[in-house]
């Protein structure tokens, strides 16, 4: 029994080391910019860089827009599939999984071919059009996570009965969706939002090939030209991801504590 427990701890230690040692190494390296002493010089250098602030701000804005438009697409879709079209559920699930199977580079080349400046819908012909296209591409990339998060939250409430209860009280569709359903799937919506945020902040392929000033391409640029700053940026990027994951945990814990009594 004791030997088994020891084995389990060794396995956990090896697994944890696999993840933690490189992170500690990166963190340690990012603090060694000043010769012979630990310092935050690399972080100061990163935060002082105007391009960092511009690309970070741009990606933040794109993340917020992606989350807002993604929710407007995903919540009504998941609701409608659950309520009225359960037979198309496998098809919708398959479609939402496609971004995991099709590489981002294939998707973006498809976009460039479909929406180039000589096409019927020349989105890449203008800055705002390209920004919109990038946002849509982020929506596509986050679809597998966003849809599942919202769908799981809907599974936790009795969507059909709540809808019928609201209908019998005279409510119409917009009222039902935004006052009865949306607030009750907020935990799923927020989980999806944080995952989307993490994806958008680190995404490289779409932004680079659409030539937009996002944080992902900036990370690559700094990585190719500087020594300590890339490590500082990597730590910052990890911090953003962890913050998002922590918030997901927080939201799901809040949801659990607010769940009905048996």
């Amino acid at each position: 029994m004791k030997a088994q427990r020891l084995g389990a701890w060794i396995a956990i230690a090896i697994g944890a080391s696999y993840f933690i040692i490189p992170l500690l190494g990166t963190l340690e390296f990012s603090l060694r910019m000043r010769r012979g002493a630990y310092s935050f010089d690399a972080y100061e250098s990163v935060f002082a860089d105007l391009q960092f602030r511009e690309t970070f701000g741009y990606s933040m804005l794109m993340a917020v827009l992606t989350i807002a438009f993604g929710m407007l697409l995903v919540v009504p879709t998941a609701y409608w599939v659950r309520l009225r079209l359960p037979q198309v559920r496998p098809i919708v699930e398959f479609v939402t999984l496609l971004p995991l199977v099709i590489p981002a580079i294939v998707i973006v080349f498809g976009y460039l071919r479909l929406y180039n400046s000589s096409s019927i819908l020349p989105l890449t012909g203008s800055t705002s059009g390209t920004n919109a296209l990038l946002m849509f591409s982020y929506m596509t990339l986050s679809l597998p996570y966003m849809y599942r998060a919202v769908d799981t939250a809907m599974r936790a409430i009795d969507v059909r009965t709540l809808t019928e209860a609201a209908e019998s009280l005279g409510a119409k569709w917009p009222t039902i969706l935004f006052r009865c359903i949306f607030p009750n799937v907020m935990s799923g919506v927020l989980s999806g939002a944080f995952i989307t945020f993490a994806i958008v902040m680190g995404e490289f392929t779409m932004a680079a090939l659409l030539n937009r000033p996002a944080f992902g391409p900036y990370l690559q640029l700094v990585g190719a030209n500087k020594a300590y700053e890339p490590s500082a940026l990597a730590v910052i990027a990890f911090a953003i991801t962890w913050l998002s994951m922590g918030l997901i945990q927080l939201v799901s814990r809040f949801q659990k504590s607010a769940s009905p009594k048996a």
Partner: protein
Amino acid sequence: MAFLTLTNIQKSFGLVQVVHNFNMGIEKGEFVSFLGPSGCGKTTILRMIAGFETPSGGSVVINGKDQGALKPNQRNIGMVFQAYALFPNMNVHDNVAFGLKVAGASKTDIDIRVKQMLGLIKLEHLADRFPYQLSGGQQQRVALARALAVKPQVLLLDEPLSALDAKIRISLREEIRQIQQQLGITTVFVTHDQEEALSISDRIVVMNAGRADQIGTPFEIYNTPATRFVASFVGTLNIIEGKVADPATGAVTIGGQRIALKEPIAGLKGGDSISLALRPEAASIAEGSKGDTSLPGEVVSTSFLGSVIRTKLRVGDDVISFDMFNDPGITPPVAGENVSLRFAAKDLLVIRE
């Protein structure tokens, strides 16, 4: 014309017809229960009244107005669901106020009406609680208040007590009946619990395989069941097989013994098989008990049910149950004992298929 009229209602899901030509009129202020086993079509009829299902044929008319073209949110029908269906993001006050807000009532009117409704269900002190902070019984009372707040023309209750424990179920069903009588609201109640239906209804519809086997008062349904299904579904019933001796005088033979029923037997001739029903409470083995008929039998088993003791007796090829009131002074019969089962021949009911 009745306040709520269902005419030739039919409903099919694909090739399966779940409701067959259902007809019924419900008067204003009446409490009608639809009683039947799972899958008999009772909830489907309720949902067609509410507008959640579209009838494959027939019409639903409320207060002289055909509801066919109206969506559920245009019918002004209150509905209470088995699963409570309170909005989890709203507190008790906001749940009850929801329909009034949707209708565009003023804040003052909403507050007055919500207070009235919470007073009706005696939960004024829980107005700020959220559904997850309430017990099942409290949630269902809030759901009832929410449905009544909009002053619906008909109240529909879809197995509202099924998810509650036995004690709460009894107290809440009495509360529902009292509120219904107080407001005089036309109510349709769906249940599979015969005791519930018998105790609170003005009339009961016993549903079987998409058809109404019998519509009548609880007294009629229990005492004069129209079909074998009604007889077996409502209460416990013994079915005794016999032969018709003389249909004109109502004479039958059971286990070789000739018995005269209370009325002539229509539709059968001498020598035909006949099924007769006898309620457990109508028979006895006590010495000196009333009854003009006695059948010899052997005790199979005895079960203690609290207020009564139920005994199973083998009489010929049939096993007959009978009840005796519990009394610490009596000695229940034991298995293998030979006894005489006594009952009045007038208590035997002829069962039609």
